C-alpha cells in the first residue's frame, strides 16, 4: 500500500486541510506505513462477523420533551472570530 502525493492531496481536500508540499510528502510516507501495518486485518476471516460501531446495549434513549432555557445568543456566539447582530459572519461564499 503506497499512497501517491495525488491521493494525499485529494484526501487533504476532502478534510479541508491546506498542507504544504513538505507535509504532503511526509504524510504520504507516514500514512502508507500505518496503512501497511493495518493490512494484517485483511487476513482475519470476518464474513460472518457483525461490526461493532458502539459497545453499549442501549437503544432508543428517550428524553422527556420539556421546555428549558437554551444558551443565550450572546454566549453562543461569544467565541466567534467575527460576528454581527448576533450572527456568525463568514467570508464570501460566492465569488464575484
Amino acid at each position, binding site marked *: 500500500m503506497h*499512497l501517491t502525493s495525488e491521493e*494525499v492531496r485529494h*484526501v*487533504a481536500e*476532502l*478534510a*479541508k*486541510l*491546506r*498542507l504544504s508540499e513538505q*507535509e504532503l510528502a511526509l*504524510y504520504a510516507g*507516514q*500514512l502508507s*506505513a*500505518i*496503512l501497511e*501495518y*493495518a493490512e*494484517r*486485518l*485483511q487476513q*482475519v476471516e*470476518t464474513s460472518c*462477523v*457483525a*461490526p*461493532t*460501531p*458502539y*459497545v*453499549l446495549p*442501549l437503544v432508543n*434513549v428517550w*428524553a422527556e420533551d420539556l421546555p428549558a432555557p437554551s*444558551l443565550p445568543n450572546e*454566549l*453562543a*456566539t*461569544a*467565541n*466567534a*472570530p*467575527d460576528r454581527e447582530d448576533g450572527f*456568525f459572519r*463568514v*467570508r*464570501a*461564499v460566492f*465569488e464575484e
Partner: protein
Amino acid sequence: MSKALYELTLHAAWAALQRGDFSAVELTQSLLDRIAQVDGQVNAYLTVTAELALAQAAAADDRRSRGETAPLLGIPLAVKDVLCTEGVRTTCGSRILEHFIPPYTATAVHRLAAAGMVLLGKTNTDEFAMGSSTENSGYFPTHNPWDLARVPGGSSGGSGAAVAAQMAMAALGSDTGGSVRLPASYCGVVGLKPSYGRVSRYGLVAYGSSLDQIGVLAKDVRDAALLLGVIAGQDPHDSTTMPAPVPPYSQLLSEDVRGLRIGLPDEYFVEGLQPEVNAAVQAAIDVLAGLGAEVVRISLPNTDKALPVYYLVATAEASANLARFDGVRYGFSADSANILDNYRDSRGQGFGAEVKRRIMLGTYVLSAGYYDAYYLKAQQVRTLIKQDFESAFTQVDLIASPVAPTTAFRLGEKVDDPLAMYLSDLFTIPLNLAGMCGISVPCGFDAQGLPIGLQLMGPHLGEATLLRAAHAYEQATPWHSRWA
C-alpha cells in the same frame, strides 16, 4: 516530621478539613505554592486559576463553618484541558483553541464542583488528546517528575505529572486508548478508566466518540474510588450514559481478594517487554495470589489486531469530530478571501502535525472505495476483540497485565516515528475497543528509578471489584507511598 499539606491524600485532607486541622484556603495555598515552586520544571499546567481557587476555597470554608459538608468540600483538583469549564479557557492543547472560553461546563467537572472542589487549573495534554507522551501539545511538552528528561506519558500527561509532583490532590483525565492509564503508569500514580457509559462525556471535547471516557488520576485507590463515585452516573446531556445505579465505590473497598479469579493473558507477556516491567508485574501477581486470589492463564487471541483496529476506528471518528473546527463559530480563523479558503487555511494553520495526520488517516479510511476495506473491516475485528474479553470474563473476574511494555521514554525519542509512538498503547487500547474498565496501580520501579504500572481490567460496569482488588494490592505493597 510533619507533612506539608500538599503531600496529603485527598481522603486524608478531607478528614483533616472536617476536623478543622486547617482551612481549605490554607490547603489551596499550599498547592498553589507547590505549583509555583515546581511547575516551572514540570510544565503540567496550561492554565492555573489561582484567584478562582482561593475564592472557591474561601467559599468552602464558609460553608463548612455553617455546618455544611460535601464529599469534596475544599479539595483542590486539576482538570485536563479537554474538559469544558465555563469562563475558564479550554485549549485542548491546541493553538486552534488558544483563546476559547467555553460557555458551559462539562458534566463531570460540574459534579466535582457541586461536591465542593476547588479548581486549581487546567492541565496539559497532547493536542485533542491525540498522543502518548504529551509532546503533541501545541504549547509545550510536560516533563516526567521522576526524571525531567523523560515524558510523563499521554495524553493526560499534565494530569499525571501534576498528581505525581503533588501539584494537585487528584486530577481528571480522559482515556481513548490508554490516555489515563499510560501517564498514571509512567508517573507512578493511580489511573482509573471507567467503563464506557459510566461517566458522562458531555463537555469533553470529542476525539473518538465510541472510545472516549473520562477517568481520574489520583494518589491512591481510595481517592480514585471517591472521585468515581462523584462523577459517575446517568446524564440527560449524554444519551450514552448507563442508567445503572452508582455503587458507593469507596465504601466497598476492602483488603480481601480471596476467591477472586485473576486471568493472565498470554498475549500480554511477550517478547519486547522490558524485563523489569515483566518482573514487577509478575511480582504483583504473586502478591495478589498471596492475598488469596486464584491466578489462571487465559488467552485474548485477537490482541495483536487491536492497535490497527484502534488507529482506523479512532481516526475515522476524529476526522468527523474535528470537522467542527471551521474558523467560523469559534477558534482560530485565518485571514482568507473566501469561505473555502478560510476552512482550509484555518484548519491547516490551526492544527498541529499529529492531529492533521489523524484527520488525514481517518478521512482516507472513510472515503469512497476504502470504507469497506478499512473502516468496516476494523469494526468487524473490533467485535472479535470484544468477544475475547467477554469470553475471558466468563472464566475470570479480572485480568492483570502490564500497562505498557516499557517505562517512560525520553522526550524526543519517538516524535519522528508515529508508529513507534503508537506501540506504547499496545496493552491499553484493547480495553477501550471493548468498552470495559481498567486501572493502573504503581507496582515498582526499574533500575533507573522510573515507576512501573500494573494494569487490572474488569468487565463492563465492574468498577467495584476492580477497585477492591487494586486497593487490596496497593495496601499490601509500599509503592503508593513513594513520591518524586
